[in-house]
Structures are given as structure tokens and as C-alpha cells.
């Protein structure tokens, strides 16, 4: 048994990725290839320290380890922000998830990003992201959480738009940033609100006050809803989920780390962190549960029709995040975080697998793949393991966590149980659809390496750019290629297994994808997580229900068999099904038209055109017109005043003065004269 982790070591977990960032920034450009090694080493060290933190936390039964707090901002009575580290069971679990996945992704990236002109920039951003994510988990003050919350948003923005010369990537980055910021609005207001009423930013103190009933019910409900808005933005819950599929424009390892395993789970983490507050307000709880259920089901349905393997995974991620939110909504706090824990591993595995496939075929379009089972055996096996785990087959990791959620849902909220069960079936279906399309059948040619085309267009636009454009094709091009069937599949040498730097993380991630479920075999995780809650908070007791477990195995199995029947054995034709359900199919293919709604109506029209435009028009025409019109009518009634003319200056003066008169009248009416 190790000693309890000292405070300096916990600080080191936070500062190691930052150190990596600094080293990479000051690395001589000739040594830029060392960036990957630096990042991997620093984050690997942070991983080892995180294990130590987990061990200490286990010894402490998950109760918070006490660290001294440091004054960061403390002046007068306005504001007092103390910074202290907080390591309890929840933190420890998250630390291990973040650092381990991040570490493996760095190794993978060294292979995946090899030769990219932005190699060092990529690892700098990745280090920044890891540091921010660790900061989000480690600090005890909700204000600091918000600061790092925005920082992970910023690094996600930088990484989605990493290949910023591609318009789709740039647009996706901006969209992700704005949509998540929309949720953050609620979060920030919640922070303002709770500070006004509780007078502190300290999370533990807020929890205690909430449990003690020192803060009004209404305030707590609004606070919880504000926090949930932030969480919904970051964890891509309906209706703020639209940014996540587009975020797949970023490099695939980024999608694996940020948009599958860690950052998107931050929303779930935040709600879990604030769980005692949610418990005090049942309205916020059931709202979170309903949104989670809606998200889980609707995203899984879209996943069924996507043809881009990365988008399938993206919708699967949204759906699983909905699952976790649903669990929190029914009070299954332990199950939610347990699912977050297992999901991080198998989803990262699946994303890295899709990156490996892309490395071989140059495309994410599943219609251009097929038969890869023979050429990429390791990728195939690990991908199947990830899928089985995601689909929740006994005894893989996903089974245990999913079963716990289902079991709790059965006990607390039946309608959510059925939603979750259907989602489980759909999940198995779309994952095995992807497997059959990708790894079975005949190889359908892949796509041309796009470097040629993209570099050609790039050189028109940005001659200094040394970016080769990465491996991933523009989705437009990919779809165009898909529309016109490839005539020369063997034009370039066929698909092949990826380099060992990429395969190794796949193999390493397979182990937790299989085994992570047993982490809770002795209720270890449960003890950790329950210990993290303050005194007085109640948690739903997870119990194993055999009936639920059997249902949770049969339903996904049906999904797999259906996928086999449609996409492999071709007993049922996919085309005829699509025709049969055309309205539904096109509704799903267009993602419920939400993107159109947001882009055209909300962002394009309402926000940009209508509101901004109306106000600009108001200044341009109405104000001028009103003054001119007034001038005209005055001129007509009294020719003496015909010199009343309005130009720019007078418009300004007249408007100012009339509002002045208006204000004066208002003052006179309102004040107790």
C-alpha cells in the first residue's frame, strides 16, 4: 500500500501537461518531431500519479482528501476565490479516465499525425486540452470549474478547426464553440445566482447549504437548471447536440479523446458533481432524466442511417451521453459515472479504430469500405470488442454499467427504462451494421488519398501552408466520390494494417473495454463515488436484477441478428427498407432537420438577419424616416416651418432629445412626486 498522495503530487498531475505545452512551444522548429514524445511522456507521468491518487482515494473510501486552500483572489467583500485541490472518489475516477485515454491517444497520434505540417501545434493543443480537462476535475471552486470549462471549449475549438484551411472544419469549430457557449450562458448565470444566495463558490459548501435547506427551493431549481444547460451544451444533449457530429471534422484522435471520452463527459461529470443539489430539486432531476432519455433514443435512431462511420460513432456518443444523463435523472449517480468510466474506454477504442480504417482506406464512408477483416485483422478484432462492449454483451465492460442503469431505471422510472432498452437494441444494430459494412463482404475501393487534390486547392489559397491536409477527405468530396462509383479500386495499393504506433493503443484499450466492468465487482467504484458525496445525500442503491440483465442481453442480440440479416446475409434488402420507411428515413438522414433549423432559421435568419438587421434598419430607415416624415407633415401644416430639414446630425439630435423627453415623462410618472 502506498502512502496518501501529497498535495504537490496532485499539483503535478495538473502541471505536467502544462509543462508539456510550454516545452513544445519553445521547442526549436527543427526538433518539432519531438513534440509527440514530450506530450506522451508528460501525460504518461500524470497517468501514473493519477493511479496513485486513485489508490489514496480508495484508502480514504472516496472521502475528500484534505488539501490546504490557496488564496487567488480575495479583495474586500466583493469576491473571494480560494483555490484548493479536491481529490475524492469522483475526482480520482475521472483522473484515471482522462489521463489514461489521453496518454494512449498521444501515442496513437504520433503515428496518425506523422508528416502533418502542424505536428507540434497539434500536440501543443492536445497538452492544453489535457491540462484544462484536469483543471476542470481537480479544483474545488465552481468558478474555477467554469474557467476550465471554457478552456476545454477553447481547446476543442482549436482542435476541431485544426485543419483550418478546410472551410468545413472552420465552420464546425465555430459552430461547436457557439452552441456550447449557448449552454454555458446558463451555467454562468447559475454561478452568479448561487453566489448571490450562498455567498461562496466552494462546491462542497454549496452542497452542504443545499442539503441543509439553507437556500430556497426555487433558487436551487434555477441553479440546477442553469448547470444542466451548461452540461447539456458540453455533453451534446438534445437540442444542443448539433455541434458534436460536425466536430468530427477534427483529426480522429481528437474525436476519440475530446468528443468521445473526456470533454463531452464533462457535462455528465458536472451534473454528478452537483448531484446533491439536483437531489434537492426533483423538477430539475426529472427534467434531466427526460432530456437524457430523449437524447439517447433520438441520437441512436440517427445512428442507424448514417453512412459515415465517424458520424455513426458521433451519434452513438450522443446517445450514450444521453444514457448517462438519464441515469443521473433517476438518481442513479453511481451507475452514470460507472457508465462514463467504461464508455470512455470502449468509445475511444472505436474512434481510434475508425481512424485506423481511415488510414487504410482514406475515407470514412462505409459504402466505400468492406472486407477489411482480412487486411486489418487487429483493427477488426479490437473494433468488434469495442462494439460488443458498447452494445452491452456479457461479460464486457459495457454490459455491467448499462445493466446498472437499466436496473435502476426499472426501479424508479419505467418509461425511461423502456427508452433505454430500445436504445440498447438500436445501439447493437447500428454498431453491427457498421461492422458488416466495413469488415465483411468485398472491398469497395476506398477513396483516393486526398493529399493531391487538397494540397492543390490549398496552394491556391495559402501558399505558405505546409499542411498536407491530413488524411481525412472533405465530406463533400467523399460523398461525391460515393455518388459516382469507383471504377479503379486498385489504382493505389490496397488497404493494409496501420503502423504499430496506432495498433498498440488499440490493443491496450481493448483490455479495459473488456475488463473495466469488473472494477465494480466488489463495489469498489460504488464506494469511491458514494464516499465523494457529502453527508446527507442519498443515492439509489444499485441492485442486480436477473430479469433486467436477460432483457438487456436479448434485445441487443436481436439488434445484431437484424444487422446481420440486412447487411451481411442480405435476407432483407436495405434499399427496400429505406423505401418503405422513406419519410422516417429522410427525417433521420437529415437529423430531424435540426441543423437546418438552427443554421437557417436561428443563426442565419433570426439572429443575424432579423434581429441585427431589424435594428440596423431601424437606425437606417425608421429613425430617418420618422424624422423626415415628421418634417414633411410639419412643413405641410405650417409653411413658416418649411426650413425644418433633417440630415444626419439632426436625426441624431432629434432621436436623443425625444428619448430624453420620453425618459423625463417616465421619470415624472414613476417617481413619487
Amino acid at each position, binding site marked *: 500500500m502506498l502512502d496518501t498522495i501529497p498535495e504537490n503530487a496532485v499539483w503535478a498531475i495538473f502541471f505536467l501537461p502544462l509543462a508539456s505545452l510550454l516545452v513544445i512551444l519553445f521547442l526549436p522548429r527543427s526538433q518539432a518531431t519531438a513534440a509527440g514524445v514530450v506530450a506522451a511522456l508528460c501525460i504518461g507521468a500524470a497517468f501514473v500519479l493519477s493511479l496513485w491518487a486513485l489508490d489514496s482515494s480508495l484508502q480514504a473510501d472516496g472521502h475528500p482528501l484534505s488539501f490546504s486552500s490557496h488564496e487567488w483572489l480575495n479583495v474586500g467583500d466583493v469576491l473571494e476565490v480560494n483555490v484548493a485541490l479536491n481529490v475524492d472518489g469522483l475526482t480520482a475516477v475521472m483522473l484515471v479516465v482522462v489521463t489514461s485515454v489521453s496518454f494512449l491517444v498521444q501515442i496513437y497520434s504520433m503515428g496518425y499525425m506523422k508528416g502533418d505540417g502542424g505536428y507540434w501545434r497539434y500536440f501543443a493543443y492536445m497538452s492544453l486540452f489535457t491540462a484544462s480537462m484536469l483543471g476542470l476535475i481537480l479544483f474545488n471552486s465552481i468558478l474555477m470549474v467554469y474557467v476550465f470549462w471554457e478552456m476545454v471549449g477553447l481547446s476543442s475549438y482549436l482542435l476541431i478547426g485544426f485543419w483550418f484551411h478546410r472551410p468545413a472544419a472552420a465552420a464546425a469549430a465555430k459552430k461547436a464553440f457557439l452552441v456550447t457557449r449557448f449552454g454555458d450562458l446558463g451555467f454562468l448565470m447559475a454561478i452568479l445566482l448561487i453566489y448571490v444566495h450562498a455567498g461562496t463558490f466552494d462546491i462542497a459548501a454549496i452542497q452542504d447549504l443545499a442539503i441543509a435547506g439553507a437556500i430556497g427551493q426555487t433558487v436551487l431549481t434555477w441553479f440546477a437548471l442553469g448547470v444542466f444547460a451548461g452540461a447539456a451544451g458540453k455533453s451534446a444533449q438534445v437540442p444542443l447536440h448539433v455541434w458534436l457530429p460536425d466536430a468530427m471534422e477534427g483529426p480522429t484522435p481528437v474525436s476519440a479523446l475530446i468528443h468521445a471520452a473526456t470533454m463531452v463527459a464533462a457535462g455528465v461529470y458536472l451534473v454528478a458533481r452537483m448531484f446533491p443539489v439536483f437531489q434537492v430539486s426533483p423538477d430539475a432531476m426529472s427534467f434531466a432524466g427526460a432530456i437524457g432519455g430523449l437524447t439517447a433514443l433520438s441520437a441512436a435512431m440517427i445512428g442507424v442511417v448514417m453512412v459515415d462511420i465517424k458520424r455513426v460513432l458521433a451519434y452513438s456518443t450522443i446517445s450514450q451521453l444521453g444514457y448517462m444523463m438519464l441515469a443521473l435523472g433517476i438518481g442513479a449517480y453511481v451507475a452514470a459515472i460507472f457508465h462514463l468510466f467504461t464508455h470512455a474506454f470502449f468509445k475511444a477504442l472505436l474512434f481510434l479504430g475508425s481512424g485506423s480504417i481511415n488510414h487504410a482506406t482514406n475515407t470514412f464512408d462505409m459504402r466505400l469500405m468492406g472486407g477489411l477483416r482480412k487486411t486489418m485483422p487487429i483493427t477488426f478484432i479490437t473494433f468488434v470488442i469495442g462494439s460488443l462492449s458498447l452494445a452491452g454483451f456479457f461479460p464486457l465492460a459495457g454490459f455491467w454499467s448499462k445493466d446498472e442503469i437499466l436496473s435502476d431505471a426499472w426501479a424508479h422510472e419505467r418509461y425511461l427504462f423502456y427508452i433505454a432498452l430500445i436504445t440498447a437494441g438500436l445501439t447493437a444494430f447500428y454498431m453491427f451494421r457498421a461492422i458488416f459494412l466495413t469488415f465483411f463482404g468485398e472491398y469497395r475501393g476506398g477513396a483516393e488519398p486526398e493529399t493531391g487534390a487538397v494540397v492543390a486547392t490549398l496552394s491556391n489559397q495559402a501558399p505558405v501552408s505546409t499542411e498536407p491536409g491530413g488524411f481525412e477527405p472533405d465530406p463533400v468530396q467523399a460523398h461525391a466520390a460515393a455518388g459516382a462509383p469507383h471504377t479503379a479500386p486498385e489504382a493505389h495499393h490496397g488497404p493494409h494494417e496501420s503502423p504499430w504506433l496506432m495498433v498498440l493503443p488499440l490493443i491496450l484499450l481493448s483490455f479495459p473495454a473488456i475488463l473495466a466492468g469488473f472494477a465494480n465487482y466488489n463495489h469498489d467504484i460504488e464506494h469511491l463515488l458514494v464516499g465523494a458525496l457529502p453527508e446527507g445525500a442519498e443515492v439509489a442503491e444499485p441492485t442486480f436484477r436477473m430479469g433486467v440483465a436477460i432483457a438487456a442481453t436479448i434485445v441487443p442480440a436481436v439488434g445484431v441478428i437484424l444487422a446481420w440479416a440486412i447487411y451481411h446475409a442480405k435476407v432483407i434488402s436495405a434499399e427496400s427498407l429505406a423505401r418503405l420507411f422513406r419519410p422516417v428515413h429522410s427525417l433521420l438522414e437529415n437529423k430531424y432537420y435540426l441543423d437546418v433549423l438552427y443554421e437557417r432559421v436561428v443563426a442565419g435568419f433570426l439572429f443575424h438577419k432579423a434581429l441585427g438587421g431589424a435594428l440596423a434598419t431601424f437606425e437606417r430607415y425608421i429613425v430617418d424616416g420618422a424624422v423626415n416624415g415628421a418634417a414633411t407633415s410639419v412643413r405641410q401644416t405650417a409653411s413658416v416651418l418649411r*426650413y425644418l430639414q433633417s440630415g444626419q446630425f439632426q436625426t441624431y439630435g432629434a432621436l436623443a432629445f425625444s428619448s430624453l423627453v420620453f425618459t423625463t415623462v417616465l421619470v415624472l410618472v414613476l417617481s413619487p412626486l
Partner: protein
Amino acid sequence: MISLEHVLVVGALLFSIGLFIALSRRNAVGVLMGIELMLNSVNLNLIGFARFVEAPRPIDGQVFAVFVITVAAAEAAVALALAVAVYRLRQTIDVDRLNLLKW
């Protein structure tokens, strides 16, 4: 007997006339004259208050008025200089034709 009310009413009338001129004249110099009238109504008010209101130092209002007159003169100087510059460039000082900058 002239009371404070009389002074204030005359001041308000003067202010309104000045305001009207400032907002209706096309010529920049005319606008400026309107503003001068508004400033003069301020002076009238200040003097009136200094005369009628019980104050620790009644002279304050009068001093204020003298300063306002001075500043107004300086203001006219700056404005006329600007008007000359504008006229040289555009052969007009109509404020309604100064509309390059808008929206």
C-alpha cells in the same frame, strides 16, 4: 415684481427655441447659433438661481455663467474652423449633406 418663475420660463422658452433651431437649420453655422441660444438659456437660469435661491455663495452661479460664455466662445471658434475646413473640401456646410458616414 420679477420672480424666479419668470426667469425660468423665459429660460425654458429660450432653450426650446435654441433646440428647435439646432435641430432644424440646415446650415452648420445656424445649428451652432441654436446651440448658443441653448447655452444662453443656461446662463439665464444660472443667474436667476444665483439671485433668488438661498445659497452659501450666491456668486457661484454668476461665475458659472461667465465661464459658460467663455467656453461658448471657444466652442464657436473650433466649430467655425471646422466649418471652414469642411467648406474648402465640399463647397457646402449643410449638415444634411454630411452623410458619407452612416449606417
